[in-house]
C-alpha cells in the first residue's frame, strides 16, 4: 500500500518535471537529426513548391508539406532543432561564462576593477543589440558561429549584473572572510566559495536566457541577420513562413510549434528551478 503511494508520488514528481523530459526529447531529436529526417532538408524541388502535408511525389511523402522551394518541412524542422538548440546552448554558455566572471570579479574585488567592469557592462547594455548584430556581421561576416557571437556579445552584461549583485551580497559573509584570512587567492575564493553559492540564481537566469536566445535567433533571422540560407533554423523557417500563413500555413506552424515547445519547456524548467532554489534557502 505505502509502496504504491510512494511509487505514484514518485511518478507524479517525475511527471511534474515534464519540461525537462520535453527538452531532453528535443535535444535527442537534434542530435539524431540525420537519422530521423526522411529527406535531405536542403533538397529543393521547384515542381513541388508549397504542397500540403501528406503530399506524395516520386515515392517521397512530405508529411508536413513542402516550403517555398519545395523542401520537406518535416526534415527541415528536425534539422532546425540542431541549429536552434546549439545556437541557444552555445550562446548561453559563452555569455554566461564571460558575464559571470566579470560580475564576480567586480563584486568581489570592488575598487577600480568594479568601476571599470561595471561601466563596461553599462556601455554594452546601452548599445542597441541590433547595432551590435549588424556590426558583427559586417566585420566578421554572417553565419552560424557569428550568430552565437552576436548573442553572447549582447547578453553577457545580464549575467554580469546578476553575478555582481549576488557576489556583493555574500562577499562579506563570514565563511568568505575566513577563507580569505586563511590565505586563499582570489581565483580560489571565487571558484570554491562564491560561485557555488551564487550558482542557483545564475542557473535560473541561464535557463530563462536559453529560451530567450531561441527567440533572439528567430528575431535575427527575421531581420536578415541569422544563419545563412539554406541552413534550416526554426527562426528562419518561421520568418519566411509567416508570409505564407494564409496560403501555406504549414511552413510557419510546425517550426513555430517546435520553437514554442522548446522555449516553453526552458521557461518552465527555469521557473521550477527557481522555486526549488528559493525553497532551499
Amino acid at each position: 500500500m505505502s509502496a504504491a503511494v510512494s511509487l505514484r508520488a514518485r511518478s507524479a514528481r517525475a511527471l511534474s518535471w515534464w519540461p525537462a523530459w520535453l527538452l531532453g526529447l528535443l535535444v535527442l531529436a537534434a542530435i539524431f537529426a540525420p537519422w530521423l529526417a526522411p529527406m535531405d532538408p536542403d533538397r529543393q524541388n521547384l515542381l513541388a513548391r508549397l504542397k500540403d502535408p501528406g503530399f506524395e511525389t516520386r515515392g517521397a511523402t512530405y508529411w508536413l508539406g513542402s516550403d517555398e522551394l519545395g523542401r520537406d518541412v518535416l526534415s527541415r524542422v528536425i534539422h532546425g532543432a540542431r541549429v536552434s538548440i546549439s545556437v541557444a546552448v552555445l550562446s548561453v554558455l559563452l555569455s554566461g561564462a564571460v558575464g559571470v566572471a566579470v560580475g564576480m570579479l567586480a563584486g568581489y574585488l570592488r575598487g577600480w576593477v568594479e568601476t571599470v567592469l561595471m561601466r563596461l557592462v553599462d556601455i554594452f547594455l546601452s548599445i542597441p543589440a541590433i547595432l551590435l548584430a549588424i556590426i558583427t556581421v559586417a566585420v566578421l561576416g554572417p553565419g552560424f558561429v557569428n550568430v552565437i557571437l552576436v548573442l553572447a556579445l549582447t547578453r553577457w552584461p545580464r549575467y554580469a549584473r546578476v553575478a555582481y549583485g549576488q557576489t556583493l551580497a555574500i562577499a562579506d559573509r563570514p565563511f568568505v572572510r575566513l577563507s580569505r584570512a586563511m590565505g586563499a587567492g582570489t581565483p580560489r575564493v571565487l571558484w570554491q566559495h562564491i560561485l557555488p553559492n551564487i550558482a542557483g540564481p545564475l542557473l535560473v537566469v541561464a535557463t530563462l536566457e536559453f529560451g530567450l536566445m531561441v527567440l533572439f535567433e528567430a528575431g535575427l533571422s527575421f531581420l536578415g541577420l541569422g544563419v545563412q540560407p539554406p541552413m534550416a533554423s526554426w527562426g528562419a523557417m518561421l520568418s519566411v513562413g509567416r508570409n505564407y500563413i494564409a496560403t501555406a500555413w504549414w511552413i510557419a506552424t510546425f517550426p513555430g510549434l517546435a520553437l514554442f515547445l522548446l522555449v516553453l519547456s526552458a521557461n518552465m524548467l527555469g521557473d521550477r528551478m527557481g522555486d526549488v532554489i528559493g525553497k532551499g534557502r
Partner: protein
Amino acid sequence: MRPLTGLLTGVAITVLALPAFARDVTIDLTGEPSSLDPHMQWNPDSYYVYRNIFDNVVTRDNDGAIVPQIATEWNYASETELVLTIRDGVTFHDGEPLTAEDVAFSVNRIIDPEFGSPQLGQFNQIEMAEVMEGNKVKLTTKGPYPALLAQLVKLSVVPQHIVEEVGKDAFNEAPVGSGPYSFEDWNRGVSVTLAKNDSYWGEDGPFDNAVFRAVPDAATRIANLQAGTADLVVGLDSDGAMQLAGNPAVKALSTPTERVAFMGMNLDKPPFSDPELRRAASLAIDSVAIAEGLLGAGEVPMAQLSSPAHFGYAPDIAPFEYDPEQAAEIVASKSEMAATPATFATAPVFDQRVVQALQQMLNDVGFNISISMTDMPTYLAAARAPDRAERPELNFGRWSCACQDADGIAYPLLHSGSSWSRVSNAELDALLEEARTSLDENVRLAAYEKVHQIVRDDYLVRPIYQAAVLYGARAELEFEPTANESMFLNRMSWSE
C-alpha cells in the same frame, strides 16, 4: 453599419448623378520617402510620391513611348544641343506661372556638383541649360548623348522663386510643384498626404486626397489591403499575391519591367575565371524554371542585359541552353578548379528564393557555392571592392537604370572603366562607347547587338530574367503598371 452607409452613398450617387465619386486613396509603400525634393534621392518610395507633385520635362505614356509633358517639342540644333519648347499656361501650386527660367534652373540645379544630387550620374552628360527666346530652353551636352531624352523623363521642374527663397531643407519639407497633386502634409515616419490640384493643366487626378504610408513588412501591407485600410500596396512577390486570389475585393496587378536580373561572376579568380566553367554554370541554370516555375509573376527568361522594354534590345540573341548533364561533365573534367569554394554574395532586399535556387542548381552539377547574406552596405562594399580579386565570386542583381536604354545596364556592368565591371575587353569597351555617343539609332542598335552577343558567347555575366513588378489593389481601382515602375495618380481611376 458601414455597408449600409456605402449603399446609401451609392444610391445617392446614382440618383443625383454627381459628377465624380472622388474617394480618397491610401497607398502602402515599403518606407517613407527619403526626400520630396525631386532633385535629391531617387528611390521608388520617394519618386512614387514626388512625381505626382512635380511635372517632368518629358514623360513616358503607359506603352513606354516618350511624350511631351513640360516640353511640348524638342529638336536637336546640333549633335550636342537640344532645344526644348516649354508649355504655356502651366502654373505652380502657388499660382505662379512655370517658365523657361524654371526649367533651365532645374537642370542647372541638378547638374551642379556643389548641390550634391545623388542623381548627378544620370544627368552629368549635360553641360548647361540656357533660356532662349520664345519660351525655349537649350541643353548643351558634353558630347553627342543619345540617352538624353530618356533621362529627361526623370527630370522634375521645380519653381526657381520658391527654391531660392526658402532653401534646400525647407523646400524638401514643403515642396511646391506644378503636378496634378499638391503637397499637403508629411507626418514623419508615418505618411505623406497629397491633395488634388484643381487647376492642373493636364489630366485630372481621380482622388481628392492621396495618402502614401510607410509599412515595412510585406505581410502587414497585404493585411492592410485585405482589411480595406489600404487601396494599393507595393512590393509583393508572386507567393504574396497568391493570398489575394481568394478575395474578390482585391486583385494583383503585374507587368514586366525594365529591370534585368543577372548573376555576376568574378572573372578574376577561380572557378569563374575559366570560360569553360562559366559555360558550365550557365548550362546548370534553368532560367525558365526560375522565371516561370518559381517566380511566375510575368518574369521573362533573358539571355542579354536588356529587355524588350529597352532601346537596344536584340531579339535575335539565342536563349541560354539548360543542360545540367553537360554542365556536370564539364565540371567533372575540371573538378579541381570547379571545387574551389565560392561565395554567392546577397542582401535581404534580393529574392532569397532565387538565390537559393541558383545555389542549388550550381552545386548540383558539382560547384562548391555557399551563400553569404549581409546587410546592403556590406554587400555593396564587397561587390564594389576596388581590388577586383577581393570581390565575391558570385553576386545577384536586379538592375534598372530607369532610362529604358541598353546603355544604362550594359555600360556600368561591362565597360572596363566602370567600378561595377569585372570585364576588361577592348572590343566591348569600343562598342559601348560607340553606342553611347552616336545619335544614329541604327548604329546604336548594331553596337548593342554585338555587345549582347559577346556577353552571350563568353558568358561574361549571366542574365537570367526580365523582372516583373507586382502590386496589390482594391478590385475597383484601375491602375496600369508600367515598365519603368511609375505610379501616376492621374492615370488611375475608380471603376465604379
